[in-house]
């Protein structure tokens, strides 16, 4: 199966943290050297490293106990060379996902504590002042004593601005000099205007009309305190939005027990090398991806695939890192380690998708770009309007309205509306075993009106079995099966595999086939000895002038029983009809019903003949189907539905239906746990159940609904809040908003957006 590389996932761009070293084929690698106690060891280690093939240059830094190696070489070989020289070495890792997550949480926690400290200081001054203004009344300057008192309070407020609000002012200034404006600009301008005006009143009370000699120190302190509080709470709430990714990262085992030189040793997971033999005991987590060499067990893969039933694993079966070994002890060979494991790829994909934006967010982004300067202009217009048309004291009204406009406007709520919901929604989907590639796929899948389901491997298990052999001119079932299996031995088609399996079960030895050729969509032909063999559908027989008329009824009956009849001819005569049936997955019927209940037009697509297709469709409750579709026609069927104005989802196994998946509005690939990122799919379902489809659509719908609520709330808040703050209601109702209330509203508007996004965490994807 094709695995998408991280480069492809990131739109052909790649990212890495500096210092990060891939395990192989890197131009420069850092190793940590252990056991080097003297300077003379340096030469020995350097010589050992330089002798490794592919190394261009190796240098050991004795002081730092590190080695820098240039060249195209596997880090495992380097480590072995150092070990052979009598020392130990390990790759200087950038740190695991868990480490960077811990670092991020620590940084967030430190920032939270800082904001809470700043908030406490600001509110310690703001709340008593606020209480004073409410209880005692007007905060005006009428005497020299009051001037002194207010001067002291003004200086204290300046202290609050410097201690608790410094980041707003520095940010505003830096943005200003950079010709940009952001939330800091609004807060700094709003609180700065209120403080400056108040200081003018304190120093030059006679410069303003008597009625306008108010001070607004309480507003400045309260606004800074409240916005700090809002930011702090937002950090807490944001932490919860990344719970899903934390859970995924937490699935990673810390250590692995590897068998090297016949000894079992516990090592850190980062040190597991490709082809290492790894032992996993019952109850332990499987550390990396691999193939079972020895032992038998059952593995709980639910954390990755959402599939609740444990999966049996025996020799040659694949195991996936992060899943839990339940019953037996196994030894497996590591086939994917480090950043190549399925789990690492899932984490990478989910992270990327969580940060990508669906088209619905673009309008908000476009608005955000102009938002702050527009609010500044509205503040100026509002102040001018009050000065020209307002009642006395017009200057005070002008200052209050301008400040309130600047403070109430919240570009953050708009900016956060989409990404926060996507973050939670994509994470929620991943928990249900649904990997969404990006925001666009998330948005489109919420609008799907028609879903095309490929029959084999999607509705059915994809592992057909031979059920009947109806003899025509042949004499024994064994002969028929042996020859048919010989002919099909080279084919990877699921039906061919079932014929070969059936022959193997009966211990039939296969013959050598010559002049083999496949006739796409019809069948195969070839020679065994002198005998000319043909195996395929009715059309193939008719094309080759083989009479099947007497057996059409037999084939028809088989088809009506949801079996696929195939005609086998030898030497120009029909030898037998072999029927193969592919069992329908246990929950396909209920999942299809779920899709239909959601108003989705479900259409089945298959290469099978009409009668078999109809029988399967009838069984699973699908009334519309395309039968006898050649592989290359699948995309045409998608286009056909799109022409009918349907938004089409196409579900397949991602192998031979890539063009159809790519053409569909949303391509869904049904994986099997390890096939985590199927290239052509927008959405990968990690378990085989079709309920994953219904889950994916349900999560997408819930997320889009959540985004719309957020965007609507943020738009309404700003569209209603800004004019209200400017005082448009004053002429009618005498209402003018206080800057402190505006500060509180602003602080909690973005918190509301994050909290609403967090509601998605409680969404239940599975409704069987």
């Amino acid at each position: 199966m094709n695995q998408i590389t991280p480069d492809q996932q990131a739109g052909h761009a790649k990212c890495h943290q500096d210092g990060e070293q891939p395990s192989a084929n890197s131009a420069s690698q850092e190793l940590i050297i252990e056991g080097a106690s003297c300077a003379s060891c340096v030469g020995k280690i350097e010589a050992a490293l330089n002798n490794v093939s592919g190394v261009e240059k190796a240098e050991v830094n004795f002081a730092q106990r590190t080695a820098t190696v240039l060249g195209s070489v596997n880090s495992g070989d380097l480590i072995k060379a150092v070990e052979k020289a009598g020392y130990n070495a390990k790759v200087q890792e950038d740190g695991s996902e868990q480490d960077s997550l811990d670092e991020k949480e620590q940084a967030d926690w430190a920032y939270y504590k800082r904001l809470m400290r700043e908030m406490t200081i600001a509110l310690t001054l703001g709340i008593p002042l606020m209480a004073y203004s409410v209880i005692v009344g007007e905060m005006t300057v009428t005497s020299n004593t009051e001037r002194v008192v207010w001067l002291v309070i003004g200086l204290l407020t300046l202290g609050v601005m410097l201690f608790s609000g410094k980041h707003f002012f520095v940010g505003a200034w830096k943005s200003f000099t950079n010709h940009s404006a952001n939330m800091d600009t609004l807060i700094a301008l709003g609180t700065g205007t209120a403080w400056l005006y108040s200081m003018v009143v304190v120093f030059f009370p006679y410069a303003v009309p008597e009625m306008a000699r108010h001070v607004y120190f309480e507003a400045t302190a309260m606004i800074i305190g409240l916005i700090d509080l809002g930011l702090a709470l937002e950090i807490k709430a944001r932490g919860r939005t990344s719970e899903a990714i934390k859970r995924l990262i937490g699935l990673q085992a810390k250590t692995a027990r590897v068998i090297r030189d016949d000894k079992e040793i516990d090592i850190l997971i980062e040190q597991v090398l490709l082809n290492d033999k790894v032992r996993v005991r019952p109850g332990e987590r499987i550390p990396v991806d691999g193939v079972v060499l020895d032992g038998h067990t059952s593995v709980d893969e639910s954390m990755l695939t959402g599939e609740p039933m444990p999966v049996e694993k025996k020799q040659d079966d694949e195991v996936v890192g992060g899943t839990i070994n339940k019953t037996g002890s196994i030894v497996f060979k590591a086939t994917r380690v480090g950043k190549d494991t399925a789990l690492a790829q899932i984490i990478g994909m989910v992270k990327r998708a969580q940060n990508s934006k669906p088209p619905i967010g673009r309008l908000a982004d476009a608005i955000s770009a102009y938002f702050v300067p527009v609010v500044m202009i509205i503040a100026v217009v509002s102040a001018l309007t009050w000065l020209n048309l307002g009642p006395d004291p017009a200057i005070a009204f002008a200052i209050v309205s301008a400040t309130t406009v600047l403070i109430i406007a919240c570009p953050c709520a708009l900016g956060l509306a989409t990404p926060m919901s996507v973050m939670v929604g994509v994470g929620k989907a991943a928990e249900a075993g649904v990997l969404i590639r990006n925001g666009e796929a998330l948005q489109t899948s919420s609008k799907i009106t028609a879903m095309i389901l490929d029959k084999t491997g999607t509705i059915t298990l994809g592992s057909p079995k031979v059920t009947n052999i109806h003899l025509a001119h042949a004499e024994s079932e064994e002969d028929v099966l042996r020859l048919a299996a010989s002919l099909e031995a080279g084919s990877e088609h699921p039906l061919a595999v079932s014929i070969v399996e059936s022959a193997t079960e009966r211990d039939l030895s296969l013959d050598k086939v010559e002049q083999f050729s496949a006739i796409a969509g019809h069948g195969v032909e070839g020679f065994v000895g002198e005998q000319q063999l043909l195996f395929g559908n009715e059309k193939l027989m008719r094309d080759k002038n083989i009479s099947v008329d007497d057996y059409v009824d037999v084939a028809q009956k088989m088809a009506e029983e949801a079996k696929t009849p195939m005609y086998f001819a030898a030497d120009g005569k029909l030898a037998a009809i072999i029927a193969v049936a592919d069992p329908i997955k246990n929950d396909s019927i209920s999942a299809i019903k779920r899709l239909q209940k959601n108003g989705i037009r479900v259409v089945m697509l298959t290469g099978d003949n009409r009668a078999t297709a109809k029988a399967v469709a009838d069984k699973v409750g699908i009334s519309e189907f395309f039968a006898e579709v050649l592989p290359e026609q699948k995309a045409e069927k998608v286009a056909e539905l799109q022409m009918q104005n349907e938004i089409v989802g196409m579900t397949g196994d991602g192998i031979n239906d890539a063009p159809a998946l790519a053409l569909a509005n949303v391509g869904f690939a049904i994986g099997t746990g390890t096939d985590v990122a199927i290239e052509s799919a927008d959405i990968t379902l990690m378990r085989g159940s079709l309920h994953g489809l219904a889950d994916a659509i349900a999560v997408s719908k819930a997320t889009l609904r959540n985004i719309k609520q957020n965007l609507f709330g943020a738009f309404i808040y700003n569209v209603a809040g800004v004019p209200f703050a400017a005082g448009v209601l004053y002429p009618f109702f005498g209402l003018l908003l206080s800057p402190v209330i505006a500060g509180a509203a602003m602080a909690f508007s973005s918190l509301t957006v994050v909290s609403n996004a967090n509601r998605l965490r409680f969404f239940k994807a599975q409704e069987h």
Partner: protein
Amino acid sequence: MMIINILGLLLIGLIVWWFWLYKPREVIVSEGAITVMVEDGTYQPSRIKLAAGEPATIRFMRKDASPCAGTVLFSDFDVSEELPLNQFKSIVLPAMEKGEYAFSCQMQMYRGTLLVE
């Protein structure tokens, strides 16, 4: 009053000019790599000139603990990456066609432009 009104209108004109019409000088990337500081609400530098048809590396250094600064998005290339605090993070962009491409934080408060010529 007339003077105040004129001053107010001038202020509006200044806002329009300063934030929308004025284009700060761009920084030209030499030898395919540049470091962008993420600090105090801004990307420094925020206008970066790149050569068309060549991949470029942009190294971000995030100094701002605010979670807003934690993600950088290059929407045109479907690239979004988390920026760890006080650590360099390199983003390799593919060879680009001529044009202007925006990059920003999730909330569009940090904004920058790539000028590909």
